[in-house]
């Protein structure tokens, strides 16, 4: 299913992530999962949270650059090669995976995919039948 991910610009400097996290904490925003891409100069913090709208607003108020990105969340089949079949399907339709990250939910591992064509990815993965989509309700339930 499609989720709204928050992508946040951070300087690669001690304290810059603390500031973002404390702003979110002060506003009672629960982070389900996150991933950090960093280079020598800057980092991009990617966050999945139920309260993405509120999180976006409080960060923007604090003059932090944040952008909402559409990502796809799927359950990774618990069998050898489960991950491969997802990637095979995407590459068959020339859908480019920009990045991905996984996290363990209560029952299964969930993978967040950032692809260049999220709608098409969902449609093709559905047709493929081998993946189980996770709805926002399921994800944020725990």
């Amino acid at each position, binding site marked *: 299913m499609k989720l709204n991910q928050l992508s946040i610009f*951070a*300087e690669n400097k001690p304290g810059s992530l603390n500031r973002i996290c404390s702003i979110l904490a002060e506003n009672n925003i629960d982070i389900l999962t996150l991933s950090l891409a960093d*280079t020598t100069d800057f980092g*991009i913090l*990617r966050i999945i949270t139920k309260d993405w709208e509120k999180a976006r607003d409080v960060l923007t108020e604090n*003059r932090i*650059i944040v952008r909402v990105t559409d990502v796809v969340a799927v359950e990774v089949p618990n069998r050898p090669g489960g991950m491969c079949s997802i990637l095979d399907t995407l590459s068959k339709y020339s859908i480019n995976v*920009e990045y991905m990250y996984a996290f363990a939910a209560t029952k299964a591992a969930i993978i967040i995919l950032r692809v260049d064509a999220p709608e098409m990815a969902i449609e093709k993965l559905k047709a493929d039948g081998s993946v189980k989509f996770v709805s926002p309700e399921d994800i944020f339930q725990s």
Partner: protein
Amino acid sequence: MSQYKRMENPMFNPVSAPDYLPPEKLRELQTERFAFIIRRAYENVPFYRRRMDEKNLKPEDFRTLDDVKKLPFTIKADLRDTYPFGLFASPLKDIVRLHASSGTTGKPIVVAYTQSDLDVWQETMMRTMAAAGVSKDDIVQVAFGYGLFTGGLGAHYGAEGLGATVIPASGGNTERQIMLMKDFGVTAVACTPSYFVHIIEVAEKMGVDLHKLPLRRGMFGAEPWTEEMRRHIEEGAGIRAFDIYGLSEITGPGVGAACECQCGLHIFEDHYYPEIIDPDTLEVLPDGREGELVLSTLSKMAMPMIRYRTRDLTSIMTERCACGRTIRRISKISHRSDDMFIIRGVNVFPSQIETAILNEGKNLPHYQIILTRSHGLDNVEVDIEMTQEMFSDKVSAIESLTARFSHAIEKVLGIRVAVKMLPPNSIPRSEGKAKRVIDRRGNN
């Protein structure tokens, strides 16, 4: 000016009449005033007497404007060396105002005004604002600093002289500035161009659309700025951005101003005499050639300035302006010889880097140039603040943006440049002149 002419052009303000003097008349007036000021300086200021004696010059040696080139130059260090009152030609009882510039090192520079000097200053600031189309119907917000700096009070008296409604906001407290603009229906603003860029930024964050306000004109000066920055300001706020020019050593703002044609700046030649020199040979250059602007005051009583080297690089424009003014124009000043830095033997002006950044991005992000030295080699780092529009969740997109910025800057400088993207507000904002270059080469 006849009543008829004024009726024909309701915008015409009689205070601007000297802008249209026939050239022969103007030269005659300049010659007369120059002779007077040289005598005044020679007789009242030991510094000028000594300098002229050294060249074997007497006031009566000055007969025509051709003789100006024989006169000695005055430089900023001369003002420091004679601190505080050494260049005054009037006794303190005749001096009604002192201003001072913030010297970055040691003592400031002091400038003095008699009542007649203040009157001339107000007149030239009225002409400055009238040239930008400001009239008594305007509400003018002065966001130049008030105080020892000449910008605030200079703009204030100019707008007040025209009968406009003046809001003496001074610099700083940007959110309040924007609130005043909105609530009072401000139609014109005067401040430094970099501060106005900051105002645009803050207004955006406050959700105030400057395009929708009655604000129509901005008069910007006190620091060099580029054509690209003008475009950025005009598009970002929906106003027309006019250049104003001046320096406290000469009088403050009101030395020159852009007219409605926005092509160069008219110098108020009946009070300030411009020359362009080659800064190396000190030779006077013909009109049209770029060099250092040298100014002489023709009517200043308290503190005459003879051939003051401004360090501003420009040229005297040769064609007559379409606006009809006969006073000559200088081309837009986008750099000062002071701002120039030398990096691995190449002369660089911050404005060149700014132009490269503006050509690459759509908006002007906040930036700073940092010079360092390691192993005896100069390094340039340009820090640019990330904006919402430039940001992407993809590392590759930000890396290619950074690469585009560095290529654009490298094309100008001819050497490798490290561009670093920083979060918003990482670079300190100034409410006066922007500090674009940090030179740390002395420290290592």
